[in-house]
């Protein structure tokens, strides 16, 4: 009996030693991952990455555009895919015919736009790749109103630095929101999209209006947009980091 026990005991001790070593290492990594000062230091790389990436890409550098044959047969939807907010459900039942997008905040001429108004703005159609922060990519065709044209109509005040996008969906316990800098808001490929793959935007992909800001990761592309607010600072929104996922640890510049 003791003969039989020996190898298993040895195996157990060896396993325990390995586990202890591994736990000590990963415990160290976990403690550092939970430590605010360490994480702040790590996030300081964003202060280099954001300006450097924007400098390299240029203000007007375009995201690659693809051809019809590249369009993904299945375009995955993430985050909110069917908002349960009562107001949104009401709009969905009406086929979104009374949906409004307001443009306000630090502007000289606040706008209150119907979907028909949005369609009256200069539009852009683009076949682009959508990169989720999780790692996957899908290609889709988007048509929408150029945000730069909308901003021209709203006339942002001099002190406006950011465009903040308010959304109709609650994810977890907070309303989704996002923000981009004014140069990114004015980028040629930045649109408030109302069509995807030649059809009105469907609910999983942000019906009736979503942001497309093509040089950034998926979480920047706010869905179910109800309001574009021009602001000079992001501190007063959500937890102050400029977006729903930014408040939960993702980088605001969303460039990689």
């Amino acid at each position, binding site marked *: 009996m003791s003969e039989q026990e020996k190898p298993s005991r040895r195996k157990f001790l060896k396993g325990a030693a390995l586990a202890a070593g*591994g*736990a000590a290492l*990963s415990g160290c*990594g*976990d403690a550092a*991952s*939970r430590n605010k000062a360490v*994480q702040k*230091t*790590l*996030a*300081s*790389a*964003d202060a*280099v*990455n954001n300006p450097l*990436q*924007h400098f*390299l*890409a*240029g203000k007007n*550098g*375009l*995201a*690659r555009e*693809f051809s019809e044959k*590249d369009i*993904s047969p*299945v375009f*995955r939807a993430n985050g909110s895919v069917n908002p349960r907010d009562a107001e949104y459900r009401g709009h969905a039942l009406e086929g979104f015919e009374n949906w409004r997008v307001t443009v306000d905040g630090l502007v000289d001429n606040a706008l209150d736009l119907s979907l028909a108004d949005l369609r009256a703005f200069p539009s852009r159609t683009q076949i682009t*790749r959508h*990169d*989720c*922060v*999780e*790692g*996957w*990519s*899908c*290609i889709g065709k988007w048509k929408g109103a150029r945000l730069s044209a909308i901003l021209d109509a709203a006339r942002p005040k001099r002190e406006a630095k950011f465009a903040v996008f308010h959304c109709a969906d609650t994810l977890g316990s907070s309303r989704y929101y996002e923000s981009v800098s004014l140069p990114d808001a004015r980028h040629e490929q930045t649109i408030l999209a109302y069509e995807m793959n030649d059809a009105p935007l469907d609910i999983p992909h942000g019906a009736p209006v979503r942001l497309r800001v*093509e*040089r*950034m*990761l998926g979480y920047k592309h706010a869905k179910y947009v109800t309001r574009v607010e021009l602001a000079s600072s992001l501190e007063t929104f959500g937890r102050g980091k400029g977006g729903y*996922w930014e408040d*939960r*640890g*993702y*980088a605001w*510049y969303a*460039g*990689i």
Partner: protein
Amino acid sequence: MSALRARKEKRASTLYLRHPAALRLTHWFNVIVLSVMLGSGLQIFNAHPALYWGKTSTFDRPFIELTYDYNADNQPIGVTRIGSLEFNTTGLFGYSSERGRGFPTWLTLPSYQSLASGRRWHFFFAWAFVLNGLAFFIWALARGHLRRDLLPTLADFKKLPHTIVEHALFRFPKGEEARRYNVIQKLTYLFVLFVLGPVIVLTGVTMSPTLNAAYPFLLDIFGGRQSARTIHFLCAFGFVLFFFVHVALVIVSGLFNNLRSMITGYYRIETGGER
């Protein structure tokens, strides 16, 4: 008699500076950096534990996938798919710690699921990797390390079959011959320095949608963003493979001497003869 002989043998060897301080420093710094990059990289991978070829994700036919399924007894099992091959990897890949998980907790940084945290580690230490690599390249070029120690000579290539056979028999160069890296070593180090290193950085950059706008040709070089992600992963796997072979050879070809030479710089070689 044997004591005399031992003393003689001791005298018939010499210590020489094999690894200058700059090399030792960048080497050990790289050990730390690559550990963090691997752990955080696997954490990021776990957010979507599948790899594809091409521009986009073909969800129904991934190139590699670490997923989970249920067996006949309705018990969850970890499944690793590579092309059309399928392996049960419960407890390691696909399913561990009683949940669906690409890589197990002990391989990821942090051990618990946190894409945000993994990304912060990865994109900070990516700079450490690049800067450390650049420091090494500048030093290696300036001090002739590349030309003198790493570039194989014609004679090296002639000895290649012989060196391969010797390695397979676990026989390693001795004496003056051991003063230089052997040809397999040189070629391996050059491959890591000029292929794995640059390609893992460039494929990383290719995954950035913002930098795609700056350097769209990178997408063409690597065949699309999802191919770049796959190649990035394969390079990481290459680094892991290199690590295991490297450490194994360090152990079998003289652990103490090798470790000393990478810590203090000094390596002992037998000078032979009776002198």
